[in-house]
């Protein structure tokens, strides 16, 4: 699956996008975040405070309990500050 990172999430992780295989036991966004945290200290720091993490699946905002699949594009970023 495609993962995209923006703003401080991108800076903490150290890359703007990557491809991973979704493990069979992971079914939702929350599970994916936990899986990513296990990849290293940079991910732990990016996802440290879930209150300031927003997620879009295939460019639509979703909650952390949103069900995901291998074909999805998942984007993580902080609350928006447009305008």
């Amino acid at each position, binding site marked *: 699956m495609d993962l995209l990172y*923006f*703003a401080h999430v991108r800076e903490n992780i150290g890359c703007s996008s990557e491809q991973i295989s979704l493990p069979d036991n992971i079914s939702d966004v929350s599970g994916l975040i936990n899986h990513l945290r296990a990849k290293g200290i940079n991910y732990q720091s990016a996802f440290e405070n879930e209150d*300031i993490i927003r997620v879009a699946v295939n460019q639509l905002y979703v909650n952390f309990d949103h069900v995901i699949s291998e074909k999805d594009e998942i984007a993580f970023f902080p*609350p928006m500050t447009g*305008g």
Partner: protein
Amino acid sequence: MMKVLVQEQDFNIAAEIADIVSKRTDIGGIVTFTGLVRDFHGSNKIQKMTLEHFPGMAEKQLEAICKTAQERWPLLGGTVIHRYGPLNPGDQIVLVITLSAHREAAFDAASFIMDWLKTDAPFWKKEETLSGTHWVSAKDADTLKAEKWQK
């Protein structure tokens, strides 16, 4: 229909108005909002700003916000332009134009679009100050402003 642009280059308000109003005689009022980079954020003097965005999704979100505004108010058209990339104090960031037969609809729709854009458009501001760079955090006030329209 409203025109949505996400672009790095600057915009000209007169040209943008002319582009959607030109020769039309059914429009009673045009409201515009232009957002500029301020040189102060709280007590921090801002040297520069960078606007990061989510290409593709940014356009989609702006279009969705415009669609909602058009369903809610009798608009005769409009434009939303949001810039990204490096910006300096005084630079234009965002332009919203709404056209209506009546001024109230144009005012309310422009204000609505701006409120939602602050909280729902995937853009992130990074400010460069004398004490370093930092990402601007979302304001609770903006979330409240966006929520007020759900009433």
